[in-house]
């Protein structure tokens, strides 16, 4: 998270942090384990009142930012979500709200209003099943049939699909991409709930079997939405990075505290150099993760040419080194670190889910290489 917040940003962050501490304590998160939605709609509505869903929406559409950069402000919320391992469809709702607002199409005003108010949820369907589960490997077909769009394909994992009234579906029309807003109850749409490591996030497999919608359901140009999809991916990666770093921060703080409190052989764990050096490496990885997450958010906000490179670098680094940091925290806790009773796994779960979504560290590593080699003129 940013080192320097404006007073308004700090107030905003603090308000969200206090709200989450009150409404998403660890016991509540554990309680939601078997809950179909994973979160209470009233909790989400009140969160929306705090501004959680309005930051990527233009002021004309009823949104607005704290600092002038809504995405940076959103990282403050995402960071607190990670720190508290909080439930709620933060990423999908914001990505869809941003896309609807950017489309400038008044036809979606009602849904956008619902997202802003927290009374509606919508989600983004990007990933697809094995063997086409690679980032950007999109086989979902969106065909134009006179004045209709026809959808064929499968998307997974789709976050909060069962709680969403609408699905923003990314598919292929000829050589280019198309995005369509599909009501979840449209004929031909079917959902299969998935199992997941996160206690409060819910994912589904969503099948589109000849779903027919009017052309007006397209968000952005038909067959030419590639740049828009890339932009959404950047937003998603920035949110995931901030949330992952929040989860890492909680796990790290908890483990440092443990190292001071836990005695073996008459001295605290924190006095053993073997562990001190591990903590030093973890601290370096943690600060580096904060730094690259913020750099990525700044680049996407400014729309600089390196935004793709930096968001992927953040995803790759935070996923890989953060995963090791998380497991080191477990190791230093010992057996208690792998029990359900201990809180550590709540953050481990969140980091683990975020690491695997929207491209693995390996995929993003290779994406960084592609950007870098193209710039160096090597390919």
């Amino acid at each position, binding site marked *: 998270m940013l080192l320097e917040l404006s007073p308004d940003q700090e107030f905003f962050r603090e308000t969200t942090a206090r709200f989450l501490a009150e409404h998403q304590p660890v016991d509540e998160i554990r309680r939601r384990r078997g809950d179909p939605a994973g979160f209470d709609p009233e909790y989400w509505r009140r969160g929306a009142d705090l501004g959680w869903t309005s930051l990527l929406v233009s002021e004309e559409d009823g949104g607005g930012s704290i600092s002038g950069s809504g995405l940076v402000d959103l990282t403050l919320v995402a960071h607190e979500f990670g720190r508290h391992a909080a439930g709620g469809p933060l990423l999908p709702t914001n990505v869809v709200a941003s896309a609807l607002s950017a489309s400038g199409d008044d036809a979606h005003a009602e849904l956008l209003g619902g997202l802003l108010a927290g009374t509606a949820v919508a989600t983004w369907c990007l990933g697809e099943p094995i063997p086409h589960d690679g980032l950007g490997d999109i086989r979902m077909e969106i065909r134009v049939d006179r004045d209709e769009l026809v959808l064929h394909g499968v998307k997974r994992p789709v976050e909060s699909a069962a709680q969403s009234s609408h699905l923003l579906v990314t598919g292929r029309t000829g050589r280019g991409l198309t995005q369509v807003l599909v009501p979840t109850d449209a004929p031909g749409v079917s959902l299969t709930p998935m199992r997941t490591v996160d206690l409060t996030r819910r994912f589904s497999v969503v099948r589109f079997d000849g779903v027919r919608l009017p052309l007006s359901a397209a968000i952005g140009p038909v067959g030419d939405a590639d740049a828009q999809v890339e932009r959404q991916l950047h937003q998603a990666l920035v949110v995931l990075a901030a949330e992952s770093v929040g989860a890492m921060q909680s796990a790290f703080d908890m483990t440092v505290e443990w190292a001071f409190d836990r005695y073996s052989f008459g001295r605290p764990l*924190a006095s053993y*150099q073997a562990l001190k050096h591990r903590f030093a490496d973890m601290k*370096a990885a943690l600060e580096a993760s904060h*730094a690259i997450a913020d750099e990525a958010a700044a680049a996407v906000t400014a729309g600089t040419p390196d935004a793709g490179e*930096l968001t992927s670098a953040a995803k790759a*680094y935070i996923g890989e080194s953060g995963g090791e940091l998380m497991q080191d925290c477990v190791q230093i806790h010992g057996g208690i670190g792998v029990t359900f009773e201990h809180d550590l796994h709540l953050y481990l779960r969140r980091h683990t889910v975020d690491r695997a979504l929207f491209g693995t560290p390996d995929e993003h590593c*290779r994406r960084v290489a592609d950007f870098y080699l193209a710039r160096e003129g090597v390919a």
Partner: protein
Amino acid sequence: MTDTEDLDAFRRRVRAFARENLQRTDGSEFVRALRNERTDEQELAAVARDREIQRMLYDAGLAGLCVPTEYGGQGLTPAHQWILNEELVGYEFPTHLQSPTFAPCLPVLLEFGTEEQKQRHIPAVLKGETIWMQFLSEPSGGSDVAGALTTAVRDGDEWVLNGSKVWTTGAWWSDWALCLARTNWDVPKHRGLTVFMLPINREGIDLHRIEMLNGSREFCQEFLTDVRVPDADRIGDVDDGWTVGIRWMIHERTGLNSPLVTMPVGVLGGTRGTSMGAVAQSAGRVHDPRALHLVGESHVLELVGAALRHRIAEGVGSGKMSGQASAVGRLFSGKATVRRMTIAFELAGAAGAAWTDDDGSIAGTGDDYLMRQVSCIGGGTTEMAANVVAERVLGMPRERTMDRDVAFREVPRGPSH
């Protein structure tokens, strides 16, 4: 009071200066220098050119951006320095003057020098007239800096120094040195040290060049025999050298991340300028997914390292982080560089072991690999940095030592010292 120069205007000024005065470079010259592919004559010519560039920067009002104006600096901000570093990408810059002259020697002078010392030395540094070294490590030990055995004995208005210092990079073409010496053997080690400054090319200093395993002869060792230093060249109080030393160490760990350092963004950051893209291309592996992963990993480490340097500079600058946080950056960059050297060697395949002049960027990756650990040793080992992070940043208990509260002459030493 004048307003600080507007950043955009500053950027335009730097851009114009660079275009008109500096030669373009692809960084390969810099890599050659690090790999010891220059003769002594070429090295001296490169030093002379660096002094020239520094003088041009000074004359253009672009030297010592974060140094107060009363000492010849510009009194600007780290943000200005960052812009200078951004705008110098692709241009030559005074490589030989950055470390250790601009960091850590310059900040030590700024913090602890008397007004007269600062007036005498800082403008000369900013004009490229004097290049500084650290007489810090000794043959008896590098990490235990405060265990220095080099001794200074007072003789009237002078001090007489005897002992040996080592790992002074480029001392053979440098001018002045900051020297940590023991002035009292009858108190615990941290309380018997004093810092001096002295010219290097003088009677009583016998300078040897050490041959490294890759053939480089840039590292030096000095033998000091009855070297007389006026008391006016003492920095800080007698026997209080560790007060200076603590800050000196922090500035050393900050190293090239210091806002006093001028270095194009991305050229270094502890990565020794190797273009992993060029290595992968020379190796014919740009379409191999595993090689792509390695190239990506290497570049991710560069991007993350730059972001981390930025964050720590901002945090230390604003006071949100203590100066000890520099050890976090040092730890990261040491290990990241080690990893990058390994990746380059890995990409090279068998050409990492045996190569010809036609092998392009692969050539030399084997030598770099042999020298890999330098990034985790030079400038204070990563182990020491890890201690600092754990103990000073995270507040964990200090390691036990056998030299606390004991007169230094009673401290156990190895048989050879």
